[in-house]
């Protein structure tokens, strides 16, 4: 009995510690809670573990998200702005409320004609990623190496690609670089999967219930409005206002012009955690491998994973001395399900329990702006055993595959794992 209690205690402590991790992370740096609006780090990248004796990198398989950007929907800027304007017209704003309104006006003005576009910081993120990719694996980018870069047809992705390949070209002008952004590759670059869409839609109510249950806008309203009954009566949807305002707040880090603006004081630590927690559940339903959606949604990236395998096969078997890199530029809504499908860093975690999800599965660790997956392939003269080092956001990552050369994997094992996993769901159409 004692033993059971102590085990239970240990488990409980463990769970508390797990969530405490998220809360502590946000306390230390609230910008992390911005989740998919989080700016990609500019420093602190750990050194890459040296490859086993005799192995040299020769090919990189990559999918990366566009860098920091403006919000896509105008209403995310305008809705909180309009709600605060109601308070302004009636003299019901606190001093901070008025300041926040003024800042929102400035940000909204600056966003005109810019919605969804790559920001200055977003461009820099890709320049940095390309520079480190080159510095970490110079052998991949030797003279004459091919760099085949593809982007979705969305402009912020194309400009992200442009910033990476430009830097690579400047580091070695003798690279053989081609770029493309075409409907012809969209079936794997950003596949529209009607099955996944329907499965998700079936769980939309569940996600909405999380929102109702977890998000409480009262504290925020007190900071912004002097008269709480006025706020209650005149704001159509205070939760929506809170979520949007937090998105605008979180996205300040996307622009040099606004990176110093901090509006997190309008929210308590609980607010910050709760809104993120709701977002986390939202993304889990939208991308994760959960029985709630028949463990099928992440298979929306089946075409992309197959494209990874095909490009690796070609690089390995073609005999090309410098196959270089396959660089792909797209969206977090692709990176995340791809991570789950690959099982990178345990993101293939399965649960139906959204209440406890955030203890085991955290999106802010996966997809900041410019989030990227790099599979780096190594070979050794005289050996057919190709090793692969998986990186998530330039950090060594794990796969659900046994290895005796961690953090490296035998590519053949990973390849078999992927092929096997892909075959476990019905064929995903590649119809162009």
């Amino acid at each position, binding site marked *: 009995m004692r033993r059971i209690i102590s085990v239970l205690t240990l488990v409980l402590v463990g769970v508390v510690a797990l969530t405490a991790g998220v809360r502590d992370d946000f306390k230390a740096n609230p910008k992390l809670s911005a989740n998919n609006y989080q700016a990609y780090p500019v420093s602190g990248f750990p050194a890459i573990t040296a490859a086993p004796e005799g192995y040299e990198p020769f090919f990189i398989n990559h999918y990366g998200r566009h860098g920091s950007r403006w919000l896509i929907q105008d209403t995310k800027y305008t809705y909180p702005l309009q709600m605060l304007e109601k308070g302004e017209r009636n003299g019901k704003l606190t001093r901070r409320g008025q300041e926040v309104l003024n800042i929102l006006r400035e940000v909204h003005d600056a966003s005109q*004609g810019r919605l969804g576009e790559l920001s200055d910081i977003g*461009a820099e993120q890709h320049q940095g990623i390309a520079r480190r990719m080159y510095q970490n694996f110079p052998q991949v980018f030797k003279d004459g190496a091919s760099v085949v870069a593809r982007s979705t047809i969305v*402009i912020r992705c194309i*400009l992200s690609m442009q910033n990476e390949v430009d830097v690579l070209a400047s580091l070695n002008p003798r690279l053989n670089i081609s770029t*493309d952004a075409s409907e012809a590759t969209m079936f794997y670059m950003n596949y529209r999967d009607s099955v996944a869409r329907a499965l998700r839609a079936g769980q939309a109510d569940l996600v909405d219930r999380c929102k109702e249950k977890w998000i409480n806008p009262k504290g925020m309203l007190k900071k912004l409005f002097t008269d709480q009954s006025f706020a209650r009566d005149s704001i159509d949807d205070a939760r929506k206002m809170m979520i949007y305002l937090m998105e605008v707040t979180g996205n300040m880090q996307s622009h040099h012009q606004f990176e110093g603006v901090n509006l997190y004081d309008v929210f308590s630590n609980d607010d910050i955690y709760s809104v993120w927690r709701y977002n986390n559940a939202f993304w889990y339903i939208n991308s994760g491998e959960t029985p709630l959606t028949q463990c099928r949604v992440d298979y929306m990236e089946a075409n992309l994973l197959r494209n990874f395998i095909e490009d690796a096969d070609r690089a390995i078997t073609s005999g090309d001395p410098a196959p270089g890199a396959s660089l792909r530029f797209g969206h977090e809504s692709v990176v995340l399900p791809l991570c789950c499908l690959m099982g990178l860093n345990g993101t293939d975690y399965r649960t139906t329990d959204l209440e406890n999800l955030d203890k085991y599965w955290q999106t802010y660790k996966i997809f900041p702006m410019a989030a990227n997956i790099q599979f780096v392939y190594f070979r050794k003269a005289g050996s057919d055993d190709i090793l692969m080092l998986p990186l998530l956001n330039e950090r060594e990552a794990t796969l659900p595959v046994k290895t005796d050369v961690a953090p490296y994997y035998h590519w053949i094992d990973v390849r078999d794992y992927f092929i096997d996993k892909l075959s476990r769901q019905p064929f995903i159409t590649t119809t162009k």
Partner: protein
Amino acid sequence: MKRFTLYIIMALAGLTLYAINPQRQIIGNFDRSASNHYAYPYGSDVDVPELTAAPAGYEPFYIDHYGRHGSRWLTNGKTYSRPINELTRAKEAGMLNLQGQRLLTALSLVNEFSQKRVGDLSDIGAEQHRQIAGRMFKNFPEVFKGDARVDARSTVIIRCILSMQNETMKLRTLNPALRITTDASYHDMYYMGWGYGEDTLANSLRKTMDPISNGMYERCLHPERFVAQLVNDTAWAAANMDCRQLMRDVFDVVGSLQGHHDFEDINLYSYFSSDEIFELWRLKNIYWYIHWANAPQNGNRMPFIERALLRDMIEKADHAVATGEHGASLRFGHETCVLPLACLMELDNVNYSCDNLDELHLYWQDYNTIPKACNIQMIFYRPVGTAGNNANNILVKVLLNEHEAQLPVKAVGGPYYRWSDLRQYYERKLATIIDWNVK
């Protein structure tokens, strides 16, 4: 008297030279007949025009540029598929002969390659921009030295963005220290691309040009021989096929093949006689002229759709002169901007005004102005060792598709003009009141 006669003869000779023979130019190079699909002529650094040395004591410090995307797939998928549908119908009716079947096979191959690619930049298109950027750097190294600033902008159309990307990437390989920024935003579309700004006012005016152009095709284009080579029964073809449209579609596809390495070995001009090629070009030349150039038929108004673009070029040049900062403003867009802009700037004879469309081709040829990747580069010079912020000391030369263009003010010498003269001339012209209403 003898002397007078001699003058007249010389003058006539001059006129003949001016009225070049486009028929000969096209027979010498059928690719020119593709009008706006003509691949940029200096594809592999061959026959690039020689440039006059900088005036003594001057050096270039700034480039103001607008360029079109490079070679691309046709933007309308129907141009590929429509002739296939026509020929397939003939085939199913047992009316397609061997020659026709060979054409159908070739067109089907091209159509298959074009799937999901319509409007995309081609491989050759990407190369065109790398070469243009390489020559720009080589010709004007002072502009791109050290940490020069390059402000590159594109319309929101992907082939233009990738064209920009190929140029900036080339520049970066030549000087990694360049401070390059790139953008492609709706924010700038009012001056960067057609379909925005003052251009929207010209829509109804352009529509009134359609009947003129279509009427010329009806009147002048005779598809009988072209179709007869493809079918077993010309009477059947005349009754069952839109022969004129078929001929035009096939010609558009044939002319576009020069934009792709994949099709380098496919030559389909042999389906057309040289007279037909010339006539198809001549009619397209008229289309481009009346829709987008300084044609009396459009009231000589169309060049003014690029007013905002020329203003932007002047503003950015003013800024460069005032700050003395060296570098370049690169803009990437469309031939529907380059052509009216070249007219507005009165480069060479692009602004030619011609009442008699039957003679237009003698004096004005679209392939000289709007090949793929066509571009206008204004090169600004200042006295060596100065900061460049005395506007009166600034000289300028303008390159149209990399050859030195004549400008509408008095030259200081050779292709060089005083910026203050040119700026004043343009400012006055920009103030012209244009009534876009169609009477």
